[in-house]
């Protein structure tokens, strides 16, 4: 086995549609991930994702340019009609995807049986955040890689990498889930639709903006989740980043509207032996994808060249902050102070 420390992690980039896929591929190497246009993946947003034909074209384009393609089928199958999920697994195999990202155990079993040559990756939606769980998925379902929930510290990531032969992929950039993915029901508590069952969080159909006395009220299925002053920038109204009141204080009770940005952790991430650096944002534009991927490409290449002398360039930070929701960033759970 190659020592994990010898590996330069690959950038795993989001593609919500064909233009974004091309932008991601053109902006530099490695891998893109995508989902089909239905409830089988965790970004089941209107106007997003790939038909069979688009996926075929996208995979062809990526492969021609040396990129791999991962396909996410990471929601829970409808108990009464699992066909869209099993068909998606088969479609990924038939179209020559390089890996399939799954969370449901029954689908993992299905994929192993029906598409044995297709690499199986464990989705972040499976909430596997320790080596015992990962080794179990490896033993039982032959997973080759797992995406870790965004709730582990660097110490915990190091431990997982050292005690499991499953390749590890972590989120480094984009939207920050502050709750363990796959174990968060906040969205269905408010709107009836959840990431696990519907592939959505705080879905657009439930969002209403109402102006009152110059102030902008943001409601999710009628529940006030934020208020903005006229001069304040309003990002997409994700429930956990809303403003509420607790202990007599109003504010971001759960999480500030920051994006995840792990640029400063890159040498530590390399040293830990992480295989994949995942950029969130299949719902974002091709311009966003191009900008963010180019920045991360420069950072990863710089770190690979000489991790000891790696320093975060101001222009990288500026570029990520300019494109991030909320205009500010955090390294989230990767640093202790956040917790």
């Amino acid at each position, binding site marked *: 086995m190659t020592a994990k420390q010898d590996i330069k992690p690959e950038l795993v980039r989001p593609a919500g549609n064909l233009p974004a896929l091309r932008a991601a591929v053109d902006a530099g190497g490695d891998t893109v991930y995508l989902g089909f246009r239905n409830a089988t993946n965790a970004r089941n947003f209107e106007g997003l994702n790939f038909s069979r034909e688009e996926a075929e074209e996208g995979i062809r384009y990526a492969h021609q340019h040396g990129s791999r393609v991962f396909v996410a089928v990471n929601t829970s199958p409808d*108990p009464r009609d699992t066909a869209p999920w099993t068909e998606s697994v088969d479609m990924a195999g038939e179209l020559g995807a390089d890996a399939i990202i799954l969370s449901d155990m029954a689908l993992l079993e299905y994929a192993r049986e029906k598409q044995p040559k297709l690499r199986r990756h464990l989705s972040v939606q499976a909430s596997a955040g320790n080596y015992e769980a990962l080794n179990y998925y490896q033993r039982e379902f032959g997973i080759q890689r797992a995406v870790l929930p965004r709730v582990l510290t660097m110490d915990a990531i190091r431990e997982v990498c050292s005690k499991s032969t499953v390749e590890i992929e972590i989120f480094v950039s984009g939207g920050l889930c502050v709750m363990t993915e796959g174990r968060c*029901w906040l969205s269905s508590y408010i709107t009836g639709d959840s990431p696990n069952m519907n592939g959505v969080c705080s879905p657009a159909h439930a969002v209403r903006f109402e102006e009152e006395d110059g102030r902008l009220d943001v409601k999710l299925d009628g529940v*006030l989740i934020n208020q903005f002053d006229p001069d304040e920038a309003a990002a997409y109204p994700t429930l956990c980043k809303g403003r509420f009141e607790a202990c007599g204080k109003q504010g971001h009770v759960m999480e500030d509207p920051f994006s995840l940005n792990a640029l400063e952790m890159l040498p530590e991430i390399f040293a830990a032996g992480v295989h994949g650096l995942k950029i969130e944002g299949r719902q974002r534009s091709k311009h966003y994808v191009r900008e963010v991927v180019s920045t991360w490409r420069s950072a990863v290449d710089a770190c690979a060249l000489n991790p000891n002398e790696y320093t975060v360039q101001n222009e990288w930070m500026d570029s990520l902050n300019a494109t991030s929701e909320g205009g500010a960033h955090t390294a989230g759970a990767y640093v202790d102070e956040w917790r």
Partner: protein
Amino acid sequence: MTAMKIAVGPLLFGWPEQKISEFYLELAEQAEADIFYLGEVVCSKRSISGVPWQVRLAERLQQSGKEIVLSTLAMPTTEAELQYIRDIVTAAAEMGLTVEANDLSAVAIASERGAVFIAGPHLNLYSNGTVKHLQKQGAARIVLPLELPASEIPTVVGSNDVQVEYFAHGHLPLTFSARCYAARAHGLSKQDCRHVCFMNPDGIEMDTLDAHEFATINGTQVMSYQPFSTLNHTADLANYGVDVLRISPQSQGTAEVIRQFGAVIAGKTTAGQALQELAGTRSVTEAFCNGYYYGKQGRLWIQSE
């Protein structure tokens, strides 16, 4: 069909150990409750005396003749937390008890040792195939995900030979996080939390900016504001194949909730009356939520037809 059993779920809130012991020992005298889950699920920092303390309490509860289950953490990420789970699995085996697995790590640890376990509500059992897999690994009973509509229970369980438990009453545990929201609300960090969650035995109220009740902060967890209740659906749940109804404890009124569930199951009172008893001076609509039962918004109360 045998009568549905009543389980007292693991205490999800953070309390001092003395208070937990007294609470469970008192409830154990209540005839209507058949099963007691014991152990920390939400935050490992709350457990001060660790497994030996939990074992002593379990031994005392065993004398009541109830079925005792040792619950385990839902989000272990450190070696110390995994060891905590291993120690509980070991202790359970020595005492002849079952563990509730709330993470795949606990499933892995229990199944490696050939131990029977209960698959908890945080394992994401949304599909028949997943239930089948866990049953083969040793799951004797499964607790379904909270947001799964009750009408899907027969499909998800299918012909698998497992007992079925349903989260039937209590604040819904909606999330797990690395961050402690109780510490944050009190201006503290998780590292230096000083067990601030112990100050609020039923959590901290979180409201919307227009002063509507929204949710409950329970340390690293966010819960529903209202307790969820399916007290008026016990017969439907029995028809869906549910064997055990879980009541999630809180500091006030848990004994009364158990009594009312027992009375409804035994046919001694009507569900409507029992619900109104529990709601007290409030209307049932204000006092409880049940949307998930119908596959709707979890926060809502939906009137049965």
